């Protein structure tokens, strides 16, 4: 019954049925965001033929502001997605069983960037200020952090006023917010490019504040992993992807060029992508692709410690597997 319905969906222009791997070794990867050096490793593996060597035919789907990777995965539009662990765990708790199979990013690139003139020198200065935050599943790290600091996020004297920030840096430039969310490899440089010098800014990296959560891991649906064929494909996929990532770290400029070639929108510039790649390389350098359970545990604790409104309410079970990376990295 289920499969016939999904076949009907597929005929209706929607994606293929959930829980069914595509025909021989076709794999669709759904990115978390638009084509940019944040995902260089996958584009390098595609361009350099690393996927092909493994016998895989990989399609990379760029994301965007209106694409929730977990939803694409649940709808059968992708076999594997790039997502941040906070939203992946929250989605898992809501009944979409996402499993982390690899973690190419060791460190978090998330931070708050403030103009010094707004007198935000330390987290103690947050109350009473307006802070820009991304939503759409990206708000969890921020909300956890505020919960750890004990600062309410509904405005007022002792709380912070949260502004839903579009995916740009305008609120800081227009003085609508004292601080905004930025990634070390992207929005921070947009602020710099807008003509603000680094010494006019102060930043709070989630890594330094001890509230970093894992970003840009690879996730699949739990049920798919029961299929040995799919598992084998994922081993190959992770192995080739990590080969791509390490190549990108060693050849950042060429990797940025490859990303630019795959950017159909033409929105990315060479200067920005090369800078992004060199920043991204710092975050992926510590990882061979295998998830470190200690990092996972830290992420879970940050999310559980969310005070009255935790991101996840109970310790997740089976939210990651090391099987894929163990097999991928052993040979």
């Amino acid at each position, binding site marked *: *019954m*289920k499969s016939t*319905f999904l076949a009907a969906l597929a005929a209706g222009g929607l994606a293929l049925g*959930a829980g069914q791997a595509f025909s021989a070794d076709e794999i669709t990867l759904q990115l978390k965001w638009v084509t940019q050096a944040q995902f260089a490793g996958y584009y390098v593996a595609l361009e350099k033929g690393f996927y092909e060597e493994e016998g895989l035919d990989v399609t990379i789907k760029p994301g965007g502001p*209106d694409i*929730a990777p*977990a*939803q694409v995965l*649940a*709808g059968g539009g992708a076999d594997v997605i790039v997502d941040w662990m906070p*939203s992946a765990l*929250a*989605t898992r708790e*809501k*009944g*979409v069983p996402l499993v982390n199979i690899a973690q190419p990013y060791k460190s978090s690139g998330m931070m708050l960037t403030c103009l010094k003139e707004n007198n935000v020198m330390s987290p103690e200065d947050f109350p009473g200020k307006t802070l820009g935050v991304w*939503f*759409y*599943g*990206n*708000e969890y790290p921020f909300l956890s952090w505020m919960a750890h600091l004990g600062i309410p*996020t*509904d405005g007022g004297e002792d709380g912070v*006023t*949260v*502004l*839903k*920030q*579009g995916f740009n840096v*305008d*609120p800081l430039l*227009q003085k*609508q917010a004292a601080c905004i969310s930025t990634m070390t490899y992207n929005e921070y440089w947009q602020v710099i490019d807008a003509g603000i010098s680094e010494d006019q800014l102060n930043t709070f990296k989630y890594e330094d504040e001890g509230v970093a959560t894992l970003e840009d891991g690879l996730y699949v649906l739990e049920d798919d992993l029961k299929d040995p064929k799919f598992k084998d494909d994922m081993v190959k996929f992770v192995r080739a992807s990590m080969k791509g990532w390490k190549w990108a770290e060693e050849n950042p400029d060429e990797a940025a060029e490859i990303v630019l070639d795959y950017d159909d929108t033409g929105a990315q510039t060479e200067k920005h992508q090369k800078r992004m790649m060199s920043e991204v390389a710092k975050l992926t350098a510590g990882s061979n692709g295998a998830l470190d359970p200690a990092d996972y545990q830290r992420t879970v604790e940050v999310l559980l410690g969310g005070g009255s409104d935790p991101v996840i309410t109970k310790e997740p079970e089976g939210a990651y597997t090391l099987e894929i990376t163990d097999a991928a990295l052993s040979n």
Partner: protein
Amino acid sequence: MNDGFVWFAIAFWLGGWAFNEWLVRQKFSNPALNRLAWFAVPVIFGAAIIIIWEGVVIAFNIPPILLPAPSDVWVRLINSLPILWADFRQTFLKAVLIGYAIGCGSGFLVAILIDRSPFLKNGLLPFGNFVSALPIVGIAPIMVMWFGFDWPSKAAVVVVATFFPMLVNTIQGLSASSSMERDLMRTYAATWSQTLIKLRLPAAWPFIFNALKINSTLALIGAIVAEFFGTPTVGMGFRISTEVGRANIDMVWAEIAVAALAGSAFYGVVALIQRVVTFWHPSVRSGRS
């Protein structure tokens, strides 16, 4: 229970269909019964759609992240009334109503000015055309830049969305009176303003109310879409776009239900006022509007 409900859904749908077919063919002698039948047909149809939806979700095991069952949406709606009310107040009572009043009011006044002077007609009408062609997703971020991220920027988007339909319809309406009637006013030595108030505006009401009805839905759409950009953490558009990312699709549908109710009620109120104001119009006199 599962299979049982699916069969019930199919049975209800077929039964409701048959009953409606029978109902629309009836002529009751009692006008109250007629009114009830007229009211029952869409209600039965709506109920059938919701029950079929529930049945489909159960029958095909559709994951809630793709399409939640109406029963789940209802539970979520009942349990989130304070949030939904806060969103409604932010989006509807502030952005929509204020933007609607300013947009329709300015559209009306500019139409009067244009009607007064050919010079303005040549200058302002193309400009109005131009404004109407601006895409909401394009102007919304700019309005956030100008008016901040709270409701005034959303109201500004609503103003832009509602201004033009009002302008065009009012201009059209002002030329609705016939030359014979205008000649009569001239023989009475009526001034321009007297002619406007006593003849031309009343003749224009049907057009103006058309614009008010169109704008009631445009305003709501405009405000919700505008909230997909920079917003405070409250509002219907904010909630819809945020909860999609959080995989709370039931909340998204609950918010959509509120928006649909608010939009229908708004439209209904405007239509009701129209009936009162244009009681002389043939479409109202014959008991249908």
